[in-house]
């Protein structure tokens, strides 16, 4: 068994080696992210069977928790790190030819850093470490959003940065409060001691943490940055941001709420929040004319649904949420990647300019369609399986409150269907705009077709055989739900 720490160390090392490698050859740095993520993918997947048996706890510096900074590679963590590595790999392949301007070396470094940050977030067992990885993720994404240096990118980056900085400040305050209360930063240790402390003090720290992580997780009133950042970033970065980064935030919230605090009575509030986020996201997406902005708002909606499912506090619910994280990650990455080349081809991000693209870019638009169908939740694509699990979980709870929320949430699904299908319709059945410039740079290279096609195939395959992911979902849900087991594993007996 390889150590999960390699998941962080190797890519980090590779990232910082890029400038050096860049001296040797100009072409090599382009492939470094691919290599790094391929490594991560192989390691994560190979870790999966072990993690399923029992969470792997890596203690740094030879100290036992609670004194050490350690990684906890539970089923959930490894599943998510596999997802990160998978999407990271595919997007890295896509990025080889997609990134055409600017300082490519910096892009590669930041790209790896971002993914390392995300991997760290899902693997760490220490709350401050969580913050640090979070910052790695955030700062690199601020930079990547503004990577193109055009006006919208810079503007979005600046706004993202302002909100992100506030968010991380709040997280830090929360961590300070936690530390002040418990004198420890190990999540398992805190979890073990939570019940011993008066609730309001604890709640304040929880509130700070939720708000802080919520900014990155794009929960409803905290997501002002998201549409800007996701729509202005290069498409490959948008794919990562939507597919992975915001999930990391949500993971952090789930970890904090479930494992650290065990705050089950706050969950109905989160459920409401999730549904509100879902509705707001879908409603805002409905009127969008900019395809990437639309996809960004759709991400907000999906995050709401995931949050809602997480808040169900049942094994099925959390399985559904994790499943939706996977399926949304795949689908949204696919959509952003596909739209990237469509935007190159048409030279515009207007949805109307994409009309009739089905003829000019058949494979890309077919894949886009697959992704869109999956997001709406149409069988036999993976989105259906995940939404199905969520609905099943809600009805399994048998609580009127949740069922009512679900009914409202399903309206969001319908709205989502409406705008996605409108786009798909435009692709195939609307005539191309008269004055559409035929951009020669829009020729889709092989390096873009492969990841997009692979994502579509994955969506279809997992949709047909949800057991592929399904086996991991149960343990992953337990990982979140079962606090005592977590504490036991980390702290040792």
């Amino acid at each position, binding site marked *: 068994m390889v150590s999960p720490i390699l998941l962080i160390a190797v890519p980090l090392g590779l990232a910082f080696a890029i400038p050096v490698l860049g001296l040797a050859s100009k072409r090599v740095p382009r492939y470094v992210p691919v290599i790094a993520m391929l490594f991560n993918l192989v390691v994560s997947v190979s870790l999966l069977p072990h993690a399923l048996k029992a969470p792997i706890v890596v203690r740094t510096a030879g100290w036992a928790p609670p004194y050490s900074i350690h990684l906890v590679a539970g089923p959930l963590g490894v599943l998510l790190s596999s997802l990160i590595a998978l999407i990271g790999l595919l997007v890295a392949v896509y990025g080889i030819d997609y990134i055409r301007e600017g300082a490519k070396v910096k892009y590669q470094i930041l790209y790896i850093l971002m993914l390392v940050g995300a991997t760290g977030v899902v693997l760490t067992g220490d709350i401050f470490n969580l913050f640090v990885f979070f910052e790695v993720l955030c700062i690199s994404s601020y930079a990547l959003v503004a990577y193109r240096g055009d006006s919208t990118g810079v503007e979005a980056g600046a706004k993202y940065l302002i909100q992100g900085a506030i968010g991380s400040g709040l997280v830090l305050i929360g961590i300070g409060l936690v530390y002040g209360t418990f004198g420890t930063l190990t999540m398992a240790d805190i979890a073990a001691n939570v019940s011993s402390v008066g609730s309001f003090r604890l709640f304040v720290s929880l509130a700070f943490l939720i708000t802080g992580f919520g900014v990155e997780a794009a929960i409803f009133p905290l997501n002002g940055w998201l549409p800007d950042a996701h729509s202005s970033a290069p498409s490959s970065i948008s794919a990562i941001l939507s597919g992975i980064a915001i999930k990391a935030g949500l993971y952090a919230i789930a970890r904090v709420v479930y494992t650290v605090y065990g705050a089950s009575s706050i969950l109905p509030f989160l459920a409401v929040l999730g549904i509100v986020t879902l509705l707001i996201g879908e409603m805002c997406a409905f009127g969008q004319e900019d395809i990437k902005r639309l996809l960004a708002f759709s991400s907000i909606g999906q995050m709401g649904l995931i949050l809602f499912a997480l808040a169900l506090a049942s094994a099925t619910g959390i399985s559904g949420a994790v499943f939706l994280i996977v399926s949304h990650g795949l689908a949204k990455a696919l959509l952003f990647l596909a739209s990237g080349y469509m935007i190159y081809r048409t030279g515009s991000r207007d949805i109307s300019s994409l009309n009739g693209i089905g003829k000019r870019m058949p494979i890309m638009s077919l894949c886009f369609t697959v992704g869109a169908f999956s997001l709406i939740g*149409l069988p036999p694509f993976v989105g259906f399986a995940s939404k*199905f699990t969520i609905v099943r979980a809600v009805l399994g709870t048998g609580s009127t409150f949740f069922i009512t929320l679900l009914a409202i949430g399903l309206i969001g699904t319908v709205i989502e269907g*409406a705008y996605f299908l409108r786009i798909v319709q435009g692709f195939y*059945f609307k005539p191309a705009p008269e004055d559409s410039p035929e951009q020669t740079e829009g020729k889709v290279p092989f390096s873009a077709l492969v990841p997009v096609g692979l994502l579509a195939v994955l969506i279809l395959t997992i949709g047909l055989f949800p057991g592929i992911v399904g086996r991991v979902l149960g343990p992953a849900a337990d990982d979140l739900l079962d606090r005592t087991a977590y504490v036991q594993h980390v702290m040792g007996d």
Partner: protein
Amino acid sequence: MSPQAILITAFAGAGLVFLAGKVHSHLRDFLAVLSSLALVGLIAWSHGQYGPDNEIVYVPDFLGMELALRLNPLAWFFAIYIAIINAASVVFSLSYMKGKEKLGFYYSMMLLVNAGMLGIVLSGDFLSFYIFWEIMSWSTYLLISYRRGPALHAGMKYIIMSLVGSCAMLVGILSLYAQFGTLQIAELGEAIAGSSSGYVLFILMAMGIAFGVKFAILPLHTWMPDAHSEAVSPFSAVLSGVLVRMGMYGFLLVMYSIVGLKTILNLGAGFFNFHYILSWLGAITIVIPTFIALLQNDAKKLLAWHGIGQGGYMILGMAFGTSLGVAGGIFHTINHGSYIALLFLVVGAVEYRTGGVRDLNRLGGLIQRMPVAFFGCLVGIMGLIGMPLTNGFVSKWFIYKTLITEGHPFLAFMAFVGTWGTILSVYKLLHNMFLGQLPEKYKEVRKAPISMQIPILFFCFVIFLFGVLPGIPLRAIQGIQDTMGFAPLQLTMWGLASGAGALNMLNICFAIVIAFAVVLLLMRLGAKPRRVPQEDSYAAGSSVPAGKYHHSVEFYNPLYQMISPYLKDRVDQFYYWAADKAQGVFELTRRIYTGYAGTYVLYIISFLALLIFLQLAWEIW
């Protein structure tokens, strides 16, 4: 033949045709026809092979559930009906679609819709039912949009309503799962027996919304006229003939296979009985759409509104829960499938030959140019009206008799009035397309190609066959009813044998044939008339040059002026109003994202404050 083989053939056909479309057009056409005919053959061959041998778990573990297929009389009946109409449409498409773009897509989607529908009827559990249902929904959506222009709007309308329906169905299905821990249709039937009537009602409502949207029961019907009139004609035939009737299948499945006859009939009290309310919905669905159809001038829209209206008869028959009524409902389903498909094909043929004209005010006199199409249209409208000798008559007779003997003359009245609305509007269809004067520009119209004539004549044959010998399909329906626990009917090959209220189609057929012969003989006795061209027509002594006037415009103008103010599609208007308002709300919601960073920060801080406030006020943790 196992249901799995049928489904594999269906889906493989769809895939192969798409690939073949990339290779060669003839190969594509050949494959499409071959696979749709092969399906008919396979299903026909599997007749009677019911029982445990044909219950197959094809995915043992889909998120912890089994996906199963099974074949039983109900499934087989609907499967053959789907396959036949689809095959006819595919054959019809050969010449109708010739030279159009994206044919590979078109054919594969036709077959995919077909496969989805077969999947629905063959699925042995609700999860696969839902999956196939959705596959059918989105492939239908793509096919409706195929024609572009206004079709896009129709497609959107369809898919949005369909999504609403599927959400409701998903809730219903999963509620069943949560309640009983299984989705196997066979097991659910036993499991649900003990549950409260409130729960059963909830399930029926949730499912009913989905089925009602597909079935176009009145408040949920608004997608149908647009979708039908905008789809290409062969697909309209499938859409109106079978796809919409999947709702019927769903109702039958849920109401009688699962919930069970006794529970259904005792659901609610007095006037507010479930099946009674459903019947009233059915009755309203008959009357209003039929009269709206009367006002239409677009041939396909007219037929589409009839598709809705005829659905009301099926609901009426089915909701009553008597042997006769349910038999009538099911029989009417296939009958409607046969003649509405026929009529859509005829309109398609006319459209094909006249260059896409469907406006009834611009056609006329085509009987001289397209006799086969005319014959098809005549038979079709006779079926739609329910003239004796056609199958539509028998099923309507069943339904009427149920209504009268069950003591619901008001429902019967609505059904009858609907029939009269039908007569008026379909005669207008026939008259304005085929009768009256032939406009000059259609003088050169040729008759429909052979690949169009074959399906048309086939359906004509079916209509008459089932009309004269209704025992053929009714035997099969009897088989279905046996599985649902209905008392058997006293069927004969030619109708119903039960005393004074019997029906003997063969007698009527003989009587009509003899009367026909006698009258023809009388005709021969008289002087033989002289054939004159249509210009030689009485016009108060003047000779009106051909093409100078055309009179089939605004056929029912007096009535139109009287009733059109009352027959607006208010539901549709309401939906549009609601959609408009919703978009307004969406636009307002978007304004949350002001673009000013300070606002966003304010949101963050307010959120934090809200959390703490909530804790202080209500102790949420």
